[in-house]
């Protein structure tokens, strides 16, 4: 498992957090339910994008999240190049007075998959500029290792492409990333339902980030609560040592002491 998951708290870059759930705000249908969703999810972080502002919209979203007193993690969602991501991160730092950034650099608008080359360059540049970089990446153990190598504070491999709800497509790669990582591993993107989050924690991930599966659920508040329960379940299961998978049956009940049916010569006729 990544760092510190034997502790109750999640520790990233020297800071501790209670919840293994990060909440993405992408896809929220209206700001009226945002507060209820955040309260139900009880996330360690709420992630936000940075977008051009117009006079009529600039107050409402920031005012809401500021009032809720949650930890805000800005991201570079929608960036396609190193320079776009680096400038967006620097503007986020200026706007929100935080040097934490969830780094996303995507290759194209269709797949929304990370561009590993631009991502690695951006990560290195931002780490050198003093940022705490949490890097959203492909489920590629080599890329994860490189991102940690340039100083990322956490790696965030995808379970499946953004918004697909397909869950964890390659659990073997996720396990490899976890086994080789010295920084927290936060599964991010593609989760569809709380059992996906349970699986992530059972595989050894330290946390999950969920946006679409909550914000676009039929009942976002209910789903937020379900995910909050799911990460707690997954972590408890991981710590409890599951039974191994076997190729043949293993009786769970002892064979000794079972009854035997035998017929006595004096048995009465029915």
């Amino acid at each position: 498992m990544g760092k510190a998951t034997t502790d109750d708290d999640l520790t990233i870059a020297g800071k501790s957090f209670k919840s293994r759930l990060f909440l993405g705000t992408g896809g929220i249908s209206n700001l009226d339910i945002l507060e209820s969703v955040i309260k139900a999810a009880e996330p360690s972080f709420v992630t936000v994008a940075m977008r051009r502002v117009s006079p009529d919209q600039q107050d409402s979203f920031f005012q809401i999240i500021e009032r809720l007193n949650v930890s805000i993690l800005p991201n570079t969602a929608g960036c396609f190049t190193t320079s776009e991501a680096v400038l967006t991160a620097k503007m986020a730092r200026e706007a929100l007075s935080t040097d934490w950034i969830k780094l996303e650099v995507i290759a194209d608008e269709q797949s929304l998959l990370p561009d590993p080359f631009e991502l690695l360059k951006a990560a290195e540049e931002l780490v050198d500029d003093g940022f705490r970089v949490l890097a959203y990446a492909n489920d590629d153990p080599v890329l994860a290792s490189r991102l940690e190598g340039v100083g990322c504070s956490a790696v965030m491999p995808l379970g499946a492409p953004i918004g697909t709800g397909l869950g964890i497509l390659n659990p073997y790669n996720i396990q490899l990333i976890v086994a080789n990582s010295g920084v927290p591993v936060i599964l991010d993107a593609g989760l569809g339902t709380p059992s996906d989050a349970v699986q992530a924690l059972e595989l050894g991930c330290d946390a999950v980030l969920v946006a679409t599966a909550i914000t676009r659920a039929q009942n976002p508040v209910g789903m937020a609560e379900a995910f909050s329960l799911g990460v707690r379940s997954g972590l408890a299961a991981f710590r409890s040592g599951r039974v191994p998978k076997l190729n043949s049956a293993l009786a769970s009940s002892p064979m000794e002491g079972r009854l035997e049916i035998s017929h006595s010569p004096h048995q009465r006729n029915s």
Partner: protein
Amino acid sequence: MTKDTMKGSSLCVLVNGRSIPFTTGETVADLMSRLGLGAKGTAVAQNAEVLPRSLWHSSMLRGDDVFEVLAPQAGG
């Protein structure tokens, strides 16, 4: 005489992709105030460099400056 010093010439900057005229001597702070931008949580980049809020009042607008004004929104 440069474009910037010609009195009465039409000077423009780009703000979030829109061309905005300005007058000589106007600062970034003036511009943000005039456009109704610059609330808490807003960041400004001038020609692809972050311009800290503390420098808005002392930064003069120059013709063809490109500004990006970003704030947190739901996303990601």
